[in-house]
């Protein structure tokens, strides 16, 4: 069993999450709070919101990572203990959303990952959760996918347009 699998098994029933807003419009943040209410009750899975990245197993990253927030995001992720698990939430977190090619944003998690690698910050696993904003159910589904409790449904498909 690899180190990552061992660590994932250890945190399976107590996932502490840290909510990191990197210039989001607050819609995803409200949905994160919604997921923590008794209506969805993520504490069924042991998910608990913590106030510091040093205590966190998972970072909930919302927003398109603006230029102003980029150094702070890198610092927060560096402060996390290994394994570093990240849930990129919303259209902005995954692909940059409406601001994907703007000068003032990094434009999605893929580009942030390159910046992190340049800075020597390794990330163990990422789950992309699309949605604008993400549904609380989608966040729960993303967390379960991160822990390997559910099967992934999305798959790359490329089909030819019909002949007739």
């Amino acid at each position, binding site marked *: 069993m690899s180190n990552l699998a061992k660590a994932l098994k250890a945190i399976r029933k107590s996932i502490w999450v840290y909510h990191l807003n990197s210039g989001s419009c607050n819609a995803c943040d409200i949905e994160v709070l919604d997921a923590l209410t008794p*209506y*969805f009750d993520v504490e069924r899975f042991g998910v608990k919101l913590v106030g510091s990245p040093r205590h966190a197993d998972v970072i909930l990253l919302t927003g398109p990572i603006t230029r102003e927030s980029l150094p702070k995001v890198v610092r927060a992720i560096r402060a996390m203990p290994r394994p570093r698990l990240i849930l990129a939430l919303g259209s902005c977190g995954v692909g940059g959303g409406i601001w*994907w090619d703007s000068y003032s944003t990094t434009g999605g998690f893929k580009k942030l990952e390159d910046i992190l690698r340049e800075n020597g910050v390794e990330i163990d696993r990422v789950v992309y959760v*699309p949605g604008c904003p993400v549904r609380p159910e989608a966040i729960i*589904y993303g967390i379960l996918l991160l822990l390997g409790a559910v099967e992934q449904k999305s798959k790359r498909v490329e089909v030819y*347009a019909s002949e007739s």
Partner: protein
Amino acid sequence: MVKLSIAKILQIALKAGRVTRKYPSEQPLLTPEFRGAIRIDPTKCWGCGACVRVCPPNALTLTPKDKVATLEYFVGRCIFCGMCAEVCPANAITVTKEFELSSTSIEDLKSGVVHRLVRCSSCGELIWTEAELRATVKSSPISEEYITLCPKCRKLKFGKAAMLGRGGSSE
């Protein structure tokens, strides 16, 4: 602040009942207005690019490469506005209620419809997709001599024909 007794709290709790939705084992609450990921029907899509023009975050892209053009849908950038389904002239795009789109790799969030391109019979330039050509022939009466020409060659050919009709030479 009013301090509630245990009996009173229990009474309120019993009245409210269980509110938690057991999501992964229970069906989520989806309203009829909810918009999820779009689905492109490859049997209906023309590859005209109307959805690409209207898409606010450029989640839909149409990229010509060699002899094919790929209409790619990147769900990770989609804002689920449903504008593409509104403008689609072929009604190929439908808005589904799919929201469990999470994936561990960004490539899995992309899907594409590949269209074959048609060459201009005169200059050999790639002009439009096969599906769009078929749809145009079906919807509007257009002369078969002109259908496989690019707009430039079509203008040239029509000009020459008009001059011949007036009694001039084609040169």
